[in-house]
């Protein structure tokens, strides 16, 4: 039956040819592809810096790179991975591609702004690349003052402007999603029929809209201090460097939920598809996304427990930090419960889901160590923190991103990739990941500070393990590039709904036509409805 499948004659990919048709497109799906290409490039660039970091850290002495070079590498690694890869990743690629079809719309509310936001992103990226080309920047991705505003003599300004500009891209994407979700839903698509992916993106967008402007203005303040000698954060000029940290983390803590919430949305979709079952406690999962988004705004100073804030403020923020753990716990348990009495299969996307569950759990639980004051004083700014956030950002968010990419790839290009290779890659990523980052928890508790170019000898064994793991991990990331590219030409034709999934986006051709649906569905079912009937229907055509 499968070999009778054919690609649709007319779809968004062949509706217009040539570079121009891509660069001027207003189709959210094509813009998603533009994002996919550009963020992948940045991912590998960021990965390249990670390779440099891990290489240097195989030996205690600083023998591969100059200290300044090392400092620039982790700074650029962090800046690129956070601002140019992970923050745009799922929203700008999968969200952009899928939200309109998921809610039965023809496009996002503002297609031109959508394209504009990609150009803004590219412009920001060019600033960052420019900063790299003229010598890099060495402040750490956190840009702490007064180092960034008065002491560093690297290219802080172009990098900061790059981040500032990319921030607007993020704001516009978020704004576009919120309006789209409010105003573009097809008739019958009520709030509680929305896929959880959409809920997660709604929550994410709120953070983007509310938080990003604060980091933007903070960057402006660093800029005027550095460029014109205005006094704002520099203690020599009467400023308080700790105020910078407050403003920075007011955005950057919520920003970590910009990174994880969309991944959580992906997981909800995948888990229900591959267990052919409703997500357990739909409304709890939906509202926990909003709760995470809102609570995310009241915990920021947990990055500053030893930064000279008052003892009482530290206690307040420690207390509040645990509030985000509860909705995260709710999600985790609901996903687990969804598996109960499901009909489970183990294609590559589902392997990523399992990977996500495990790694996010470790990442989230180690967040609790950090939120606990007594422990954080010791492990703050050590590799324990590095391990914590890689577990969530790489183990959680990227697992979610890759899972989503594998899941929707047939929808995006209309063809399947190699099932075998994709499973291998999922396993490589999981194993390599743990080998890379688990030793770092131990290193951190032993006291190895982060951002160290050289370190005492006794830390070497664990560091070598970590570097070895990174090699495996890198391989795991390279593999999908190969089989995804291969699938473009040679993959089996997937058909509209290869997984037998229930979302609206599977009810149109793969790849979808430019306007998403030949005929906009009007019989909107409950979310995740899997009855034997539905499944039989889905397999046809």
């Amino acid at each position, binding site marked *: 039956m499968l070999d009778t499948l054919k690609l649709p004659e007319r779809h968004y990919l062949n509706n217009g040819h040539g570079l121009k048709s891509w660069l001027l497109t207003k189709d959210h799906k094509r813009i998603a592809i533009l994002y996919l290409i550009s963020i992948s490039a940045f991912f590998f660039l960021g990965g390249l810096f990670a390779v440099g970091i891990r290489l240097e850290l195989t030996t205690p002495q600083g023998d591969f790179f100059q200290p300044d070079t090392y400092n620039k590498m982790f700074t650029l690694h962090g800046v690129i991975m956070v601002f140019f890869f992970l923050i745009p990743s799922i929203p700008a690629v999968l969200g952009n591609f899928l939200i309109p079809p998921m809610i039965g719309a023809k496009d996002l509310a503002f297609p031109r702004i959508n394209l504009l936001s990609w150009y803004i992103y590219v412009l920001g990226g060019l600033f960052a690349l420019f900063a790299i080309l003229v010598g890099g920047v060495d402040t750490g991705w956190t840009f702490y003052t007064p180092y960034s505003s008065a002491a560093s003599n690297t290219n802080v300004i172009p990098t900061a402007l790059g981040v500032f500009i990319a921030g607007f891209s993020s704001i516009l994407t978020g704004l576009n999603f919120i309006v789209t979700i409010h105003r573009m839903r097809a*008739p019958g698509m009520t709030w509680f029929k929305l896929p959880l992916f959409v809920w997660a993106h709604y929550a994410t967008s709120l953070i983007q809209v509310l938080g990003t402007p604060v980091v933007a203005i903070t960057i402006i303040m660093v800029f005027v201090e550095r460029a014109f000698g205005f006094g704002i954060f520099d203690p020599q000029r009467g400023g308080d460097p700790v*105020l910078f940290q407050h403003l920075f983390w007011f955005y950057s803590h919520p920003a970590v939920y910009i990174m994880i919430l969309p991944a959580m949305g992906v997981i909800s979709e995948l888990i229900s598809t591959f267990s052919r079952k409703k997500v357990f406690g739909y409304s709890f999962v939906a509202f926990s996304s909003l709760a995470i988004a809102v609570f995310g*705004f009241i915990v920021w100073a947990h990055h500053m427990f030893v930064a000279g804030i*008052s003892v*009482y*403020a530290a206690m307040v923020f420690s207390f509040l930090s645990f509030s985000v753990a509860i909705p995260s716990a709710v999600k985790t348990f609901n996903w687990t419960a969804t598996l109960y009495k499901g009909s489970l299969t183990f294609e590559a996307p589902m392997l990523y889901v399992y990977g996500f569950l495990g790694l996010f759990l470790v990442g989230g639980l180690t967040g609790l160590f950090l939120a606990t004051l007594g422990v954080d004083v010791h492990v703050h700014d050590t590799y324990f923190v590095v391990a914590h956030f890689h577990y969530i950002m790489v183990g959680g968010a990227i697992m979610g991103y890759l899972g989503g990419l594998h899941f929707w790839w047939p929808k995006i290009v209309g063809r399947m990739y190699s099932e075998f290779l994709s499973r291998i890659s999922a396993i490589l990523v999981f194993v390599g990941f743990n080998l890379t980052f688990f030793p770092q928890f131990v290193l951190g508790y032993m006291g190895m500070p982060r951002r160290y170019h050289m370190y005492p000898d006794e830390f070497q064994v664990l560091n070598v393990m970590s570097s070895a793991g990174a090699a495996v991990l890198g391989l795991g990331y390279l593999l999908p590039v190969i089989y995804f590219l291969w699938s473009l030409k040679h993959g089996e034709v997937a058909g509209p*709904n290869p997984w037998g999934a229930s979302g609206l986006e599977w009810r149109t051709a793969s790849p979808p036509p430019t306007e998403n649906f030949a005929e906009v*569905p*009007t019989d909107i079912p409950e979310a995740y409805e899997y009855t034997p009937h539905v499944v039989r229907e889905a397999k046809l055509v």
Partner: protein
Amino acid sequence: MAGPLPRNGPFRFQQDTPLVMGHVASKSMYYGIFAALMVLTWITVAVAYVDLGAANKAVALGIATIKATLVVLFFMHVKESSRLTKVIVASGFFFLAILVALTMTDYASRGFLPMPPGLQ
């Protein structure tokens, strides 16, 4: 699937909340608000010259807030707008308040000194 689905009824998008759009306010309302804003500006300047102690700050900010509220409600038509718009406006100020209030918990409790140690 992908077969044509039954289309029942006109294709209309949902609305979350009814929006009152295109409501034309009277000109005199605009003039009235303008006059109020001017008078408030005059008051705030005049009051600044009177020593009210700590109340000066409160009055200045209070008047500014009244003025801003007038602009938001009438010039920007929020008074007749959907609940969603109102929620958006409110949340802007709400999250700003979070930023300021929680940051100040740190500064206010850094000791009983009004100044940061060692500065000024």
